[in-house]
Structures are given as C-alpha cells and as structure tokens.
C-alpha cells in the first residue's frame, strides 16, 4: 500500500501541475480570439478616430486587468499597415498622425489596402500561482509573457461630406 501511495502522490502532483499549466494556452487562445474580434469590430467603425479612442481609453484604463481572468495587458499598440494593391510597397503608420497624402486612397501609392494592426504584450497567469522558494518560474510561480498580434482590413474607404477628408484619416 505504501508503494502504491508513492505512485499516487507523484501522479496527483504531476496532474495538478499539468492542470495549472493547461490554463495558460487556454487563456492565450481566449485573448487571441478576443483581440481578433475587437480588431475586426474596430475596422468596421465609420472613422478611424473612434477605433483609436477605443484603444486609448479602454486599453490604457484596463492596462493591468482585462475582462479575461488571469490575463494582464501590459501594453497595446495600434498601427495602420498600408499595402499597395500590387503588394510592392508597404508602410506602417501611426494612427495618431495624419496619413501622408501619397498613401491616402486617392494618393500616388494607391489603390491600397489598409490593415489595422493591434499588438498586445500580456502576462498570463497559470491557474494558480505556486510559490517556489522565492524564485520566479514562469508558468508556475510567475505569469508567462506573450506578444499577441491581430490585424483586420479597414472597411470604410469613403469620404466625409462635411470635411472632405477620408474617414480613415479622421
């Protein structure tokens, strides 16, 4: 019986560690799909400033804790990737600055597609953090750091009749 209890203890401990670690890929998957959905929703806004505000307000306010349990967002960075239709030219643009005229939908480098790219650095906790003699072991006694990247094509390529500006530049 003593021999058997030893095996049982090892098995239970191993199982617990596996369950603890299994939470990380599940949470990562959840974060990945949530971000994909958020970016896709942002690209469907009528103007870029709305998407930008969502990132500036929402992500900065909730930098330490997202709605997903055990996921801490450290940093969120939104960029616009303009790709010329032939695919020979690409530029990464800051959404807080106006788009250069050559890269606007009627610019010299266009027609092009615009991708909204959201890059997030996040720390993901295991199911339970187990202290190991004061040492930080990622996945057991400390969260694991990940960089998650999601992008989706910008939808509204029209112009605002009030300002004459392209919605992607507003």
């Amino acid at each position, binding site marked *: 019986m003593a021999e058997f209890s030893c095996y049982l203890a090892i098995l239970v401990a191993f199982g617990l560690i596996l369950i603890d670690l299994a939470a990380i890929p599940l949470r990562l998957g959840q974060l990945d799909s949530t971000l994909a959905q958020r970016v896709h929703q942002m690209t*469907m806004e009528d103007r870029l400033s709305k998407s930008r505000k969502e990132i500036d307000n929402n992500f900065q306010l909730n930098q330490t804790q997202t709605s997903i349990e055990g996921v801490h967002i450290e940093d969120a960075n939104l960029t616009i990737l303009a790709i010329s239709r032939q695919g020979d030219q690409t530029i990464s643009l800051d959404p807080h600055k106006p788009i250069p005229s050559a890269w606007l939908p009627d610019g010299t480098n266009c027609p092009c597609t615009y991708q909204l790219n959201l890059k997030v650095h996040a720390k993901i906790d295991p199911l339970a953090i187990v202290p190991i003699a004061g040492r930080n072991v990622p996945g057991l006694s400390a969260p694991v750091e990940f960089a998650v990247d999601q992008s989706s094509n910008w939808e509204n390529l029209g112009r605002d009749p009030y300002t004459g500006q392209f919605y992607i530049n507003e």
Partner: protein
Amino acid sequence: MRNKSGSLLLLMLGVLALLLIAVSVYSGFSSVLFVQQKLQEQTENMAMEAVQNFNSGDRGGRMNNVVAACRELVFNSRKVYSIAAGSKQYMVFAPLAQLYLEESRDSALFMGKERDKLVTLSLTEAHKSLKNHVNNYNKNEMLLPWIKVEPVFISDLQAGYVSGTESNVSAPLGNADLLEYDSQQKYLDSKTNLYLGNISARLPEDSDLTFKISCLAPPVQGTASPSRLGSPQEFRPLVTMVKNGEPAVYKSDYLPSAVQVKLATELALKGMISRAEAPVNVSVTGIGNGASPIPLPTLKAETVSPGRR
C-alpha cells in the same frame, strides 16, 4: 503483503477516462469556435453580396437624382403656369403652360411608380441572393467530431440605412425659389448642400405628389463610397424581411442602402439520447456602395474640315 485486487489498473482507467473527457470538452469548445468563425465569414460574404443589389450600377443614386429632377420640373412648370395664368400679358401662353405642367406631373407620377418598383426589386433581389447563399452553404455538410451542425437559416433580416447619411442629391443652387422653399422646409443640409435622406419632399401646390428621396452616401470630391461592413450601432432599420426565422411581408417607402443579417444554426452532440443543443448566432451589418459622381455631358466639338464651308 501486496493487495492483488488490481487497484492500479482501475486508477489508470480512471485517469484515461478523465483525459478523454478533457479532450472531448476541449474539442467541443474548439468546434463551437470553429463553427462560429466559419459562420461569421459566410455571413459577412452573404451580407456584402446582398447589399450590392441596393445600388447596383448606381441605380439608387440615379433614381434619387431623377426624382429630384422631376420635382424641379414640376416646381418650374407650376411657376410658369402661375405666371401665365395670372397675368394678362402672358395669358395666351396659359394653355401651353398647363400642358407642360400636366406633362411634368404625369412624369413625376410615372417616376414615383418606377421608384416603388425599384425598391421592391432591390429588396426581393437582396432576399433572394441571401436565400441562395444559405441554400448553397447548407449543401456542404460540416463534419466535426462528436458534433452535428444543423442547417443554417436566416434568423433575422432587416434592410435600412446608415445613421447620419444624407442623400446624394445636390441642392438646386441654380433655382433660387426652389432653394429658398427647400431651405424653409428643412429638406436641405446647409453645410453640405445636399438633400437629407429618406424624406418625402412635397411641393406647396402639388402636395398630392410625393417625391421620396432615399438615404445614400453621396460622392465626395469625386470619390464614391465603396460597400463595406459596418457596425450595428450605425444601422437604422427601414423594413423587416425575416423575423425569428419567419419571412415577413415587406414593403419600404425608401430605397435601403444597408442590410443587417442574422444567421443561426444549432450544434447538437452526436449519438446522445437526450438532445444537447447549443445555438450559434452571427449578426452582420453590410453597407452598400454610395452614389457615383454624375458624369458631366461631354460636348464633342464640331470638326470642320479646312476645305468645307
């Protein structure tokens, strides 16, 4: 003394059973996500294709412009008739002016009927396009482990417009009287000099005629607004075509420019005695292309050969 009843075997079987349950649960979640993603993609494609029918070949934009042109014609004919009938000097032209007025009114009535036909045609085509897509999609059964995907159906379908969008019809800047009247009636947006969308712009002495101008994104500086996916917050419904899976009798006064589609399906566990079902719904808003710029008439210069008089 060893216990020979085989407890370790039972333990291993228990662990194996737990592992199988864990894999099944994970597989179930993955399948739901996969179906949701696939349905989202399909619904987006379907919505985009359906919404093309509203302003295919700029027919909606041109119809708006023709309705506005008919309206201006009626307004001008009425004005000429009033001048002719009200003054002795031009009384002789009154019958001719009346004829023109009647003709312009007839053309306005005719255009109104054609406009209604176009609205019905656009809605029917959009609905038909969606139904065909759904039928084609259901032809290919999705095979997933332990899960049966029930046929997809249109749960809700609404046609409407985008909030804050005006019409593509420009203000009659060359017609001071009509411009003044329309400004007083608040048919116009003074900032953009465009007629507002989804209005019935009646005329004072011909109020029996309805000139319905639909909402449609105008071309701005020569750029037509391309069709796109939109957020549900900017969608405003005009007509419900399907509600809770049941087709509705639909009629719209205005030509829609956007569509909101909700597709639904159910996931059921295969081989279960009691049916465990999970509904999956996806809602998408598609916004049609805006009006094209009006092509200016090109006048060909008469070519005169040097030897010809």
